[in-house]
């Protein structure tokens, strides 16, 4: 009996090797695995055998059945592959384009603002938004930029043609997101930690590096005992997460009327790694943001006692970041609505 199964196996395996078409394979299947095959006959006849022999033969026969079924499947696949190549067959051409399914994309500014917001949110900063049309009081006076201050010259302003407000305030398009510092201080007592993303406006002629409307993100932290070391640490941590841990960071003194001391943060140029190149103006550094300890007069304007509380603030232009990151040479592209540009992000 054992010998019979063995012979059957050798025969089936040998004849399978010669098969080259699916018709032949079908005959093979009928012959070795079909209802009338010798293997089936063996399996059917098991009942008549004594119990001990039944177990031995049954095991062997079932094992052979499994083996032949596996060989059959393997051969079928091999033949199918050949048939596809030679005849084109009736299978799908997996290289033809699929039916179009559209996914849009988010604007690169949305992506960057979201990324920035997430980083600061994870450091405990709450994201808030504020009005884009503002009073000059919030945009300038309360931020320690009185009328006729030369610092206003660097923030050329779009004034709105509207009568002054109740307090004699003039309406304008905010030139930075900093007015929200005052609005938040007015509404909320310290401790506070916020970031403010949003559109800002400058009266500037448009060219490849200037546009009259762009985005900023502003940050503010006020509490008892906040130090300039906290400012540095927070912004350094931001830089590590956003630009990567391999980029060095530089803090230098700079002037913004609403902070004192004033700080400018630069990160090592990503192109030349600090060696100096055209992108960074040979300095090796890319200026990223302005910051500083909140000016006591600004705290006072927000109704916070500068002898009790201190804080830091920072603000950065957002368009710069995708410009640098993707090597975009014309800032106007962001607002061109050109799909050939926008689809790249």
């Amino acid at each position, binding site marked *: 009996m054992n010998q019979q199964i063995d012979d059957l196996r050798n025969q089936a395996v040998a004849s399978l090797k010669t098969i080259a078409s699916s018709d032949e394979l079908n005959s093979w299947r009928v012959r070795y695995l079909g209802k009338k095959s010798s293997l089936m006959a063996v399996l059917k006849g098991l009942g008549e055998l004594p119990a001990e022999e039944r177990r031995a033969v049954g095991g062997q026969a079932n094992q052979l059945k499994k083996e032949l079924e596996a060989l059959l499947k393997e051969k079928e696949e091999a033949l199918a592959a050949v048939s596809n190549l030679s005849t084109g067959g009736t299978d799908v051409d997996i290289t033809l384009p699929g039916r179009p399914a559209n996914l849009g994309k988010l604007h690169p500014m949305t992506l960057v603002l979201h990324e920035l917001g997430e980083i600061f949110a994870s450091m405990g900063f709450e*994201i808030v*938004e504020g*009005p884009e049309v503002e009073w000059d009081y919030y945009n300038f006076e309360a931020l320690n930029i009185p009328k*006729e201050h030369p*610092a206003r010259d660097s923030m050329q302003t*779009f004034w709105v043609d509207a009568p002054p407000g109740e307090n004699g305030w003039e309406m304008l398009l905010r030139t930075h997101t900093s007015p929200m510092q005052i609005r938040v201080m007015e509404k909320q007592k310290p401790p506070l930690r916020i970031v403010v993303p949003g559109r800002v406006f400058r009266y500037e002629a448009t060219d490849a590096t200037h546009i*009259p409307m762009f985005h900023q993100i502003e940050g503010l932290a006020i509490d008892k005992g906040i130090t300039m*070391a906290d400012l540095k640490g927070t912004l350094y941590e931001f830089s590590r997460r956003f630009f990567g841990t391999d980029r060095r960071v530089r*803090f230098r003194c700079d002037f913004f009327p609403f902070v004192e001391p004033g700080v400018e943060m630069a990160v090592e140029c990503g192109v030349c790694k600090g060696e100096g190149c055209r992108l960074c103006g040979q300095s090796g550094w890319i200026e990223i943001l302005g910051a500083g300890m909140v000016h006591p007069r600004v705290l006072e304007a927000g109704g916070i006692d500068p002898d009790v509380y201190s804080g830091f603030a920072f603000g950065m232009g957002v368009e710069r970041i995708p410009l640098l990151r993707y090597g975009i040479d014309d800032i106007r592209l962001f607002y061109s609505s050109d799909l050939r540009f926008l689809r790249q992000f």
Partner: protein
Amino acid sequence: MKVPVSWLKEFIKVPFEVGDLAHRLTMAGTEVASISEIGSDWDGVCVGLVLAVDSHPNADRLRLVTVDSGSGTAEVVCGAPNVAPGQKICYARIGACLVDGHTGEPAVLKPARIRGVVSSGMVCSEKELGLSDEHEGILVLPESAPVGTPLRDYLGETVLDLEVTPNRPDMLSVTGVAREAGALMGKPARVVDPEFAGTGKAIESELAIDIEAPDLCPRYTASLIKGITISDSPEWLKRRLVNAGMRPINNVVDVTNYVMLEYGQPLHAFDFDKLSGARIIVRRAREGQVFVTLDGAERKLTGEMLMICDSKGEIAIAGVMGGANSEVVPDTTSILLESASFNPASIHYTSSKLGLSSAASQRFERGQSPFLTLPALNRATQLILEVAGGEAAQGVIDMAPGLNPRQPVLVSTARINSLLGTNYPEEEIIDALVLLGCSVKSCPASRELAVTPPEWRSDINLGADVVEEIARIKGYGDIPMTMLAKSIPHQSPSPMLSFKHRLREAMVGLGFQEILNWSMTNTGALSKALNQPELSVRPLYLKKPMTLDQECLRTSLRPGLFSALASNRRFEDSEIQLFELGTVYLPAGAGLPEEPQMVGGIIGSPQVKRHWSEETRPFDFYDLKGKVEALLAYLGVNPSFEPSEDSGLKPGSQAVVVVKHVPVGVIGEVDQQAGRAFEIDEPVYYFEIDITRLLPLTVGDRQYQPIPRYPAVVRDIALVMDNTVKHRQVEEIIAGFPLVVETRLFDIYTGKPVPAGKKSMAYRLTFQSRKKTLTDDAVDRVLEQILARLSSGLGAVLRR
């Protein structure tokens, strides 16, 4: 501010490396934008002596010049009219690199035969050395110039170009930069108080000064010099001015500019003989008066502008520009020298109002220190005597109605350290401040330091200012880095942010590309997009727009989206689906405008077959409606669509989107005329939703519904009814019956065998109970009632 390093070295007596200094200045707040080396490319040029000048044998205009170059003589052909024997000149030998006088490009000097005579080198003009555009004559050096010295060593200069922040008027002066540099290098600069010898009559007997507007003029000082000779300035003075970026004019004007650059104190010289009444009056202008400034322009004055006047009238716009009527001219012999302080805001007002920004006004509007007026006056008087001769009146006039002694700033070491996050001992803090020129007194009782800032620093007034000074001197890099240690403040995040985030993601998932458009637009664009000849909402206009197409703030997202579709259609023949989520600006009485957040979307059909396997169908109203329904379902609201009359959308092909009885937006086909106005010549569909209005309608809407435990039973019915019957009428009737959980329209058919004027609408009704398994009988009973109601209410007949 351009600072020649040789000038700095007059005040910094220790050697320093320029690159190192530039780095220190930059880190301490004054960025050195560039370091330029004048003369670094002067190879082969040296000081020469003209030994002889002979005529050229073949050309009247040319001369043969014999030059002693220190290492021999050379014969050079020269065309300059001013060359003369005995002059010290700049001699370039063959092989030197110069700027070509004709092309302006750098070129290597080659041996040349000019009209038959060989020229071994060249006598240079300023242009050829790259010093200026002057090329009429050669550059003549002072007699003291040592023959044979490389010109680079004699005339070369290193110039720092500083970007001075508005808080540091002192950095707009060489002495100020020297003092800053000295403090940063730990070696204070030395600036000696200048003096002059007045040998004439006492100045008070010659001149009187009235300050009628002391609020705008805290200090006015003046000196008087008679018998001067106006001429060109000496070479060294001209050279300094040119290297610092100023144009030499004459010796007197040049000295005022020189001292302004040196001290940061603007000065003005009046022709004394042109003044009436030997009197200077400082007062406000008369409103509307016209005044001719020394550039010849007529300036219309306002009553807030400060003027310098004599007994007859105005002679200068204080701090901004002098008048033509008192200008120093070649035959001037007596001058009144003014060195004054003016109110910074007043000067800024005048200069911006007149559009007249000068080196003087830039210094005044930053609040130059009123303590510098006198040293600058002394220095200028002394220099004028030196370069223009004459005799100075004895003494000066010094009127100082608004000059207050510097008040010390009180700040404790503890406060300084607690703001910086440092642990500097008091001695280190005092040392740093002393380096900066502050005088510091320690008050042990109050544990405070009394810091009196130096006279040249008008920007140190508060404790925070002192803190910054310490940080600057110590270096920002010296301050440690720590993370915020306190607990995170209470937060109440606005639901709008996450709502916008979800909305954007849904729009992207629905195939829309996000765009961002300008907030500014124009009346014409709004009017065209909304199809409103007269805008129903008047936008906010800008007082002075940058361009006329950005004259007002958008009240609608439509113009931006329409233009974007049109401009992309030029190259995109597939479907275009765009959206913007942004602010529109709606005027709201006397206050700030309302700034609702809107989402707008537009779709344009594919223009070509999209896929090889099937025909491409153009979009219609229902394509966009389906997207809007999906969007709103994603946001958790169930809208209804009501008839609307939006002027910008096609009549009969538009709807108001209503959520909980509140209209939140519109949807429809863009009116053809509106589309054409944006060069859209295909049917496009547009929707907009006011999400500021939508958000409160969504909050708190979600609650879990148990998944039904009993099976649903479906029944398909086809109803024949009048064409005028609306789907919603059918839907509302069916919805009134129990057990119906869903009504889905799946087919509409007109034509045979449906009679004319009628249509067949096929619905699949789903019945389900939360309490039990429904029997066919129970469902059929309800269905019969529904059919009866549809028949009686709408005349609908079941189609067999």
